[in-house]
């Protein structure tokens, strides 16, 4: 047993690793997991305060591969569950993981509302443009024309634009990265984790089985271009004029409207009170109003009013 005198053990990948991932060899999600470990190593969040939560899908197996408190929940509902954990326990660091089907399709409504509520948690979407676990059906981000088992002649519906969706719904930190760019991913994760409020990192994470090559256009090693957003430095230089303002909705929408593969980095980052803070403020003032009375007194008072 650990004694109080012992210095807390440094948290490394060794302590953080659990089951070996069941993902297919070559899956982009391996790199996401590795980057997550590295950021946790850097930030040294106390081990017992790390909570990983996911719904259903290949990427949603994430909690099994992290040795930390975890929840493998039902399809599409990771965010409301994570909301409960975050609001119920301000001492914890809450992470939700999932894919495009889980987050943008069956769980789409929850994403909208977690964003507008600005719940304090970090959500990582491993977007592969296809349903992998169920073996190649069209996903909400599959581009038009993508041939799948549910669209044998090519996807008919237009894909959603997750970045626009997130900004318009009120997420206060929205970033985008590519699973082949580990350093960039780590930077995005770190900023997301340190951001107070609802932070989302969308990662293009290739499914090598059902949509191989989907993200080559964003991968320099495959002849693509990894075009990183040039954020404003607020240095009053003429060059700064043209740079991206992360606090501007217009800039975020403009960058989100670029043709695939678009840009990578922080699209949007603003300060806004979190639901956690606002609810806590209400709780505190309610407690103050009742002079921190114990439950028994409060109930007795209510009962007296019913007489």
């Amino acid at each position: 047993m650990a004694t109080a005198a012992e210095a807390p053990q440094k948290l490394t990948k060794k302590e953080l690793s659990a089951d070996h991932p069941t993902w297919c060899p070559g899956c982009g999600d391996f790199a996401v997991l590795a980057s997550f470990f590295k950021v946790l190593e850097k930030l040294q969040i106390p081990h017992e305060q790390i909570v990983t939560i996911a719904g259903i899908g290949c990427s949603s197996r994430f909690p099994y591969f992290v040795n930390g408190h975890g929840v493998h929940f039902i399809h599409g509902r990771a965010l409301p569950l994570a909301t409960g954990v975050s609001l119920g326990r301000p001492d914890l660091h809450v992470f939700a993981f999932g894919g495009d089907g889980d987050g943008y399709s069956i769980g789409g409504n929850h994403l909208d509302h977690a964003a507008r509520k600005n719940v304090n948690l970090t959500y990582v979407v491993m977007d592969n443009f296809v349903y992998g676990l169920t073996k190649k059906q069209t996903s909400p981000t599959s581009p038009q024309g993508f041939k799948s088992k549910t669209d044998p002649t090519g996807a008919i519906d237009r894909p959603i634009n997750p970045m626009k969706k997130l900004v318009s719904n009120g997420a206060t930190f929205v970033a985008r990265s590519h699973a082949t760019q580990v350093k960039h991913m780590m930077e995005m994760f770190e900023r997301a984790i340190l951001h107070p409020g609802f932070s989302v990192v969308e990662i293009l994470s290739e499914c090598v089985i059902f949509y191989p090559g989907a993200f080559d256009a964003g991968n320099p090693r495959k002849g693509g271009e990894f075009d990183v957003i040039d954020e404003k430095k607020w240095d009053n230089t003429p060059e700064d004029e043209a740079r991206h303002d992360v606090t501007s909705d217009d800039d975020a929408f403009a960058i989100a409207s670029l043709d695939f593969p678009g840009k990578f980095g922080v699209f949007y980052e603003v300060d806004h009170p979190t639901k956690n803070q606002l609810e806590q403020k209400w709780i505190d003032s309610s407690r103050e109003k009742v002079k921190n009375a114990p439950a028994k007194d409060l109930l007795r008072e209510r009962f007296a009013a019913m007489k």
Partner: protein
Amino acid sequence: MERDDQSPSDSTPPSDLQNAVIRFAGNSQDGIQTIGGFLAKLAGRSAREVMTYMTIPSTISGGPSIFQVHLGSGEVLSPGDEADFLVAFYQHSYDNHIGSLRDGGVCIYDTDNVEPVANERGLQHVGIPITSTTVEALGGSTRERGKNLFVLGLVTNLFKLDREKVVALIDRQFGRKGEDVIRNAMLAFDAGYGYSLGSDVLYQSWALRDGLSVDTDRMTTDGNTALMYGLIAGGVRYGSGYPITPWSSIMEGLRSELPKYGGLFVQAEDELGAVSMALGFAYAGHLSITGSSGPGLSLKMEALSYAVMAELPLIVVNVQRGGPSTGLPTSVEQSDLMQAIYGSHGDAPRIVLAPKNVEDCFYIAIEACQLARKYSCPVLILSDSALATRIEAFKEPDLDACLIEPTLDQEPRGEEFKPYPVDAPTRHAPPGTKMLGGKYPVVTGLEHDEWGHPSASPEMHAKMNAKRREKIKAVAADLPLPEVFGEESGDVLLVGWGSTWGPIREATKRAKDKGLSVSSIHIRHLNPLPNGFEEIFAKFKHVLVVEMNDEGLYGFGQLATLLRARYCDSKIQSICKTDGLNFRIREILEGITKHTS
């Protein structure tokens, strides 16, 4: 209306009323619920028994509405089959409700709006210009406000109720709203109180007696409120829900109340979000609650199956209404029993409880909290729309005896810790808990081994299914059998569950008065059932299950179907109905006749 017949003679005026059923019929915006609420509270303060019944239209504003109050100095078990008094505000109120008045009953009507119809049932009509007198009393306001208080004054005088107590209640209700409001309220009330009915004989003879009970610490409230405070007393501090009638008032109450206790209730984006968020609170280590009515429960079923699999404690309230689909949002029905027990995919055993009256809403909520904690599983509470809005008076709960303070379990777990031990109870380790063995648990909806690793092993699935089943069976071993009301053996045993407790009990009494051999039992624990009903059933020739749901394809209601499956006893039969109304005593008695003749 029962009278005491102590030495009646021609010279003595009729003596006090022992009980009276008064129905107020008007439109919902007239505030007739307010009159009913006052009378119910007054009853509680006068040690009288009371039960109310109301209908509210499911439209946003307005529409016909009734509030029925059954006041009595003895035990009051139902809102009353028929009214002794009807107060009709409008012609439609009169036309639709005059039939609810018993023969010889009294109809008080607003002469400004109602044209009474001649009858041969011995009804007495008392016409009062309610609208114009109220308008006059309030100084000529054209807005028809205050009629409810006028009627309250009238009724206070008519039944010789304690004026001082009524005024104190008005003061408390309106006092905070400012001087003007309370002055107008009192003007209307006094106009009604002082209204002269002339030499009408009725006027002198309706003094409603105080109860004989010496209880002074009685409180008066509705089922949803009692349930809400029961949850708080049981240690619930967190929850999430989504609006739906008739569940909403529990949600609204918890949203306002929990912060005072340092907790939080969140309105979610939908029912799926609500149950998921509640599970998030539960996973985080708090006893938490979600709830809804039938349609919402349908949406929550996947997550409830998860709660069973993941072995998380959760309280789930279903304030039942008429179904299927959107059904009858403001009518009463008990048709969600099968859904509560079997409503999720897979074999997902869980605990299902049903309160029998308003008081029991409080205690069953506390019991649900204890069970959820002890067995780490979902516990469903099946209330219904009749209980939700019905007002009853009952003894103030003894909080020293029943209050449970919530605790957050963060005790470090040793190396031997397994999240899902096959042969021991699951004790959830919430996040924040240090795992001294270095291995952290994943709570999961996949079938799993003892450490929470996904496992599709046939052996493990059978073992885990057995674990989840056996823990619910273990609950049954601790449950007491309900007591038989009446003789322990005889011709007929009525079996009920939920809000039908009162009418069944009253029907049992009446049947006995008629010389019939009828007893009854009431089941509060529906899943698991307590063990040993076969011994009770064996002592009766007929076992008739009274429930407000359809007799189904095979002629049996939902509880009857379950009891027949469990006891394979063909004498278990059904008395069912689905008219969206509470059981009348008469209907139960007719059901007995049908099955025994």
